[in-house]
């Protein structure tokens, strides 16, 4: 229950961060640096999770299409499930575990070492210098990492189906996009933008308001991961409902 | 008796111990002094087998600890207690449970008996009646005292002190030194102490070993070391005592 109350505080924190993110001065260089770090830290873990999942979907897909005798559907099932749901979800989870926990731990350490206060005293707004760059970096990098991960999932699915599963190569490739609409691409982008934003806000919140020394920092990093995952998977249900209803 | 024979130790390219040989007699307080980062802790950890020498050997009561397997090491460790720099109390347990921990693990004493020993040891280190406190509620000096109570819970023959006074204010450091002297009078067992506190060393030591530049530059009775005319030693001690 306390988490629901905390969600209110997190929403206010999000509004405050957005306000400062869009008012000058802007720290472009710091933002770019954070984006590079997020990409560097997250790309391999996300691919490491999405690619094996592409293989699992293909494995089960093979059985389902055999039941119905529609082998040509296999690649569409793979691409649609990756684009709409699995790749954004897995990408969000791994980015929360990697980049979100890092952001929370860094901000928490700076808070504990009184560096945040030192910045304020030097006349630099911590929301602008510390939080806005991380928030923007996570929001923008999430779709980008997701796009790369999604392709890796399709490639690994292709390997499972065509190389190991004996599916006809032409049938697989020619049907890749036959059921994919523009809305599916958009739904992946919109979802990951939202996920990235949620991860950024929740992680920065728990890092910024850390309490209780070194152990507090560890707890903040863990809270950031678990609670951002709960929040964005909850939102995911409504996003999916809305996007699927839109697409028909 | 603890004996080092030609002990060498390096970490990567950094040589921390270079041909250390000495014998630590029973029933005395032996203090190793030297600036921090010269391998005093490593030397001490070799006694309990937490570190192994690259060359040479370490003997405890006729057992060569650097050659022993795990079971043998645990047999040796049963007769050794060690006080770590920050006490190394287990955070998840209260003070009483920490002191009782070795008793519960290694003896089949009944709870009543354990409670009696715990309060006795806590009284001995000057912390009576704080059984229910948690390690995070204690100051640095108190944590060291509880760590000492835990180290002597099994009535060991050898007690090792890793920097017992570092990080304490001068008054508290004096109090710990007094405690070490008093304990030695009561328990009559072998104490080995690491320190970089020169005045404290002269107060408590029976024997002094000076580690400098990864070598044992002097080792002997306290008076002998204090009277030494060796230029290096004179400079070393005067720099630290301000004499």
């Amino acid at each position, binding site marked *: 229950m306390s988490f629901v109350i905390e969600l209110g505080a997190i929403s206010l924190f999000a509004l405050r961060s957005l306000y400062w993110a869009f008012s000058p001065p802007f720290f472009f260089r710091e933002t770019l640096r954070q984006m590079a770090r997020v990409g560097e830290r997250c790309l391999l*873990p996300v691919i*490491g*999770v999405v690619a*094996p*999942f592409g293989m*699992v979907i293909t*494995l*089960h897909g093979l059985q*389902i299409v055999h039941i*119905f005798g529609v082998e040509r559907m296999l690649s569409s*099932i793979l691409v649609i*499930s990756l684009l709409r*749901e699995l790749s954004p*979800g897995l990408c969000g*989870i*791994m980015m929360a*575990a*990697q980049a979100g*926990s890092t952001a929370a*731990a860094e901000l928490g*350490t700076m808070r504990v070492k009184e560096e945040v206060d030192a910045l304020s005293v030097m006349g630099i707004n911590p929301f602008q210098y510390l939080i806005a760059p991380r928030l923007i970096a996570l929001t923008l990098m999430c779709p980008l990492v997701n796009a790369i991960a999604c392709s890796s999932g399709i490639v690994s699915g292709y390997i499972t189906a065509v190389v190991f599963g004996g599916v006809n190569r032409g049938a697989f490739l020619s049907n890749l996009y036959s*059921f994919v609409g523009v809305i599916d691409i958009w739904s992946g982008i919109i979802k990951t933008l939202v996920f990235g934003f949620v991860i950024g806000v929740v992680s920065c919140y728990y890092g910024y308001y850390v309490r209780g020394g*070194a*152990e507090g*920092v*560890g707890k903040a*990093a*863990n809270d950031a*991961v*678990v609670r951002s*995952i*709960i929040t964005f*998977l909850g939102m*995911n*249900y409504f996003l*999916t*409902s809305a996007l*699927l209803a839109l697409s*028909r | 008796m603890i004996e080092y024979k030609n002990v060498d130790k390096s970490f*990567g*390219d950094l040589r921390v111990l270079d041909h250390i040989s000495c014998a630590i007699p029973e029933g005395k307080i032996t203090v190793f002094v030297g600036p921090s980062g010269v391998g005093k802790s490593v030397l001490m950890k070799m006694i309990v*087998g*937490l570190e192994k020498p690259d060359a040479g050997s370490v003997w405890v009561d006729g057992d060569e600890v650097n050659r022993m397997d795990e079971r043998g090491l*645990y*047999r040796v*460790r*049963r007769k*050794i*207690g*060690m006080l*770590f720099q*920050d006490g190394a109390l*287990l*955070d998840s347990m209260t003070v009483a449970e920490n002191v009782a*921990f*070795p008793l519960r*693990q*290694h003896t089949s004493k009944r709870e009543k008996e354990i409670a009696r020993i715990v309060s006795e040891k806590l009284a001995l280190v000057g912390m009576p009646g704080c059984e229910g406190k948690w390690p995070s509620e204690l100051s640095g000096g108190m944590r060291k005292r509880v760590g000492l109570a*835990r180290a002597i819970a099994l009535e060991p023959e050898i007690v*090792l002190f890793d920097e017992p006074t570092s990080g304490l204010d001068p008054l508290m450091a004096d109090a710990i030194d007094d405690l070490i002297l008093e304990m030695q009078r009561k328990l009559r067992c072998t104490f080995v102490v690491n320190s970089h506190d020169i005045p404290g060393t002269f107060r408590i030591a029976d024997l002094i070993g000076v580690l400098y530049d990864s070598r044992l530059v002097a080792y002997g009775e306290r008076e002998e070391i204090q009277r030494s005319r060796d230029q290096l030693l004179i400079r070393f001690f005067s720099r630290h005592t301000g004499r």
Partner: protein
Amino acid sequence: MSNTVKPSLLTGVLAQVGRWGIFSFTAARWTCSAPPALGSVLWEAYQIGVQSLSIVCVIAFFIGSTIALQGYYAFREFGGQNLVGIFVALACVREMGPIVAGSMVAAKAGTAMAATIATMRVKGQIDALEVMAVNPYRYLISPRLLASLIALPLLVVFADFITVFAGYLVAVYQLGVNSGTFLENVATYIGMRDVFFGMIKGGVFALLICLLSCYQGYYSQPGPEGVGRATNRAVVSVCIICIIMNYLLSEMMYG
């Protein structure tokens, strides 16, 4: 003049894997040769279960409902929207149940293990255990290992139940699928065998989660940053290795 070889990425990874292998072997040997007290195992199992149960349920609910939505719209393409029960049952019980339970235990209990053991390492408490002649594998790792082997398969059953239940709610009340059809589809395509296989998956995940998290904690770098690093590495390595393992297990069980 130093002639030490700089470790490359590959040798670095190989060395890590090798060290993990030795660590796991030692942990297994101590667990078998000197089993920990039943009380401490059950206490740990209770801790892991309670720590993770609520979040497993919440996440399982969201995942189940989303799977039903996706399945419904995907099958509607060729007029099979009433078959959504099959899709929900297969996807949830065979794959998502074990994965939800495993990933959440990794995120909650696994990180807690890594953080606790890393803190003990950093504060010198593991050395203190050894000096007190208490074997850290036996005292710290064996109980956690057995406890996660008990707790995770049980959490998998919870996750199975809740994902399918959420799928049912969404399919019947939001999408208007016939309740009887849905339940009949679930009952026909899923048997005890699938639930049991899911629990086996859970057991394998439990081993991996516990051994990887404890390993990262046990070999943590010094300082408070070391604890953070160990925790973070634990989650990420567990996620990747569990998902790869999941593919291999699925291939063996259902392939």
